[in-house]
């Protein structure tokens, strides 16, 4: 009889954890995704002119619809830069949200390989995939 409250508490704990896991697996994603921001630092043009092997941006750039689906590129250099099809004046920012998955390839002089690739992944589906994604998010933050 004395062990009954402990068992009830443990059972309740299990129910709570299961409930939370169920929530994490099916709860809708945030209405607006977060931004992935890149900055073209001052002196980039000079470094490129000097022939330094210098990747300003990664390629491919990975985004996920509904999660991290806004690409922001800021040009902090003193001169105009072109990132794929985007011409950015000095101290200018280009911000683009993506609402559909896709795969885009652009010629880009800021990439050593000469190509900028954007990979827009679909949002994690409800169920195990979304649960795994939420756990990964928390792992990445901690």
């Amino acid at each position, binding site marked *: 009889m004395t062990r009954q409250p402990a068992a009830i508490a443990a059972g309740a704990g299990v129910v*709570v*954890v299961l409930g*939370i*896991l169920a*929530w*994490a697996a099916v709860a809708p994603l*945030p*209405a*607006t*995704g*977060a*931004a992935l921001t890149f900055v073209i630092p001052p002196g980039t043009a000079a470094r490129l002119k000097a022939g330094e092997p210098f990747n300003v941006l990664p390629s491919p750039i990975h985004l996920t619809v509904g*999660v991290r689906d*806004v690409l922001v590129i800021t040009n902090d250099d003193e001169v105009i830069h*072109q990132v794929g*099809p*985007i*011409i*950015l*004046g000095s*101290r*200018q*920012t*280009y*911000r*683009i*949200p993506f*609402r*559909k998955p*896709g795969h*885009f390839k*652009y*010629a880009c002089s800021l990439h050593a390989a000469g190509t900028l690739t954007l990979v827009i992944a679909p949002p994690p589906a409800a169920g195990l995939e979304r649960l795994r994604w*939420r*756990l*990964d*998010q*928390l*792992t990445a*933050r*901690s």
Partner: protein
Amino acid sequence: MTPGRALALIALVVSCLAAGAPAQPAPAGNAGLRSGAFDPPREAPDFTLPAASGAEFRLSRYLGKVVVLTFGYTSCPDVCPTVLAELAQVRERLGGAAKRVQVVYVSVDPERDNPARLLGFTEQFDKTFLGLTGPTDQLAPVWKAYGVSVVRRELPGSQPPTYLIHHSASVFLIDAAGRLRVMAPFGTPSDDVLHDIRLLLAESGAQDAAIILEKPWVRRAAAMPDAGPGAPSTAAGYVNVLNRGKARDALISAITDVAERVELHETRNMSGMMMMEKVSKVELAAGSRVELRPGSYHLMLIGLKHALAPGQTVTLTLEFERAGRITTRAEVR
């Protein structure tokens, strides 16, 4: 379960208990634009090209309208027809506001896109679309200014030999003040493009405004301030003012970024002598159109801060009794 995963589960429990707060911060607003937006917006590169209709097109003459600019070619098998069909739908959905929007289609295939062919192509989608073509040496600087890549690819085995053009098919939105606001890459939902055009129209007040400013331009004085000390430092501003409202209004003052002050003047013929007089206001009856033009009402830009060069644009802000301040950009001639 790894220790990391266990910790994550605990964190998940904690985050759940932190009741419903959004997991991601809302992105910083960019005037509410949904397609790819530039911040701060800069002046759209101006250009002049022959229009397929025979007239000359100059971008800066479309100040006051929202310009939807895109690039393509008439032999394009899929992308260009898709873009133009979507833009035709967007224009249709704009209803009456569509007349404040100009779609401009610049050819990337000067070899095949002669004016007649281009006109026939754009008219299939919307008769108001303006197709622009010309020699490569005129088109290429425009492609470059907007970051449009144009790569010719021969089609192997094609008889007669033919080619495709790989090109960026972004849609550029230029606001009524002539600033490049949006570059929407191919594939941007047309709902988003429509949303952004509406926003730019509303922002400029062009959609429902009672006062419409048309064809603003500035004439340099004959001698320029860079001619030396004592040279005249004035210029004249002209614009057509249309009062579409049901009430009278009046132009009461103006300012500009290039001069110390702006006065309202009227040129009068006094017994054969052309006299210029300062006026306190220019009356605008309901439904009237008043032209500020040489020999009549005009804006006198006094105390130019620097020399004005033909082709540059200056900002003019006109203040009305009822409509308040309206800004436009005027080309220097």
